């Protein structure tokens, strides 16, 4: 699992049948210092994460598969919306 920031959303003309009705968000993985990765990722979301939210992303495709069906070609999902991050001394960047 890792942290990501939600940057946007997408809509589709066609999608795999198991993904019909699923909310999809576009995010960028962030590291402990808050630096966002260059390549965006598409995430399934059931929690209502919004733009600017920091979320925890699970890469457990088996969990998605159990929920959406055996043929579902999806892996990344939002499993939590972050309230607060506490880092060990010397890690990351302190805000405020």
């Amino acid at each position, binding site marked *: 699992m890792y*942290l990501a*920031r939600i*940057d*946007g*959303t*997408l*809509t*589709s*003309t*066609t*999608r*795999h049948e198991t*993904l019909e009705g699923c909310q*999809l968000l*576009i995010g*960028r993985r*962030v590291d*402990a*210092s*808050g*630096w*966002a*990765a*260059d*390549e*965006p990722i*598409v995430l399934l979301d059931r929690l209502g994460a919004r*733009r*600017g939210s*920091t979320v925890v992303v699970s*890469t457990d*495709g088996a969990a*998605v*598969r159990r929920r959406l069906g*055996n*043929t*579902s*070609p*999806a*892996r990344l999902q939002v499993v939590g919306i*972050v*309230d*607060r*991050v*506490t*880092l*060990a*001394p*010397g*890690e*990351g*960047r*302190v*805000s405020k």
Partner: protein
Amino acid sequence: MRGHVVLNKTVPNLEGTRFLMVEPVTAANLAAGNGEGGGKTLVVADHLAPDRGQMVAFVEGREGANAYWPKDAPIDAYCALIVKDVDFPQLPDEHTLPGTEVQE
């Protein structure tokens, strides 16, 4: 989506599968909406038939093979949807983690 790969010969469970050349789009290019990719091109299996230049979302990993269930298929990248619109403004590369505090 940049093009197709046509196979002369393939393993049994992949017969009839379409293969696409796709180029991942960086956040900067996605926000600019300039049609540029910028990532490392890869081959994805596909059943949705996007046109060249259309944006798609693909899954990487063995989940790509789920689409072939109950058959087994040696697939690790699969086109899961064709994009209609993206709402993706350019946000800063540096993100302030919420309530970040460093332990004493």
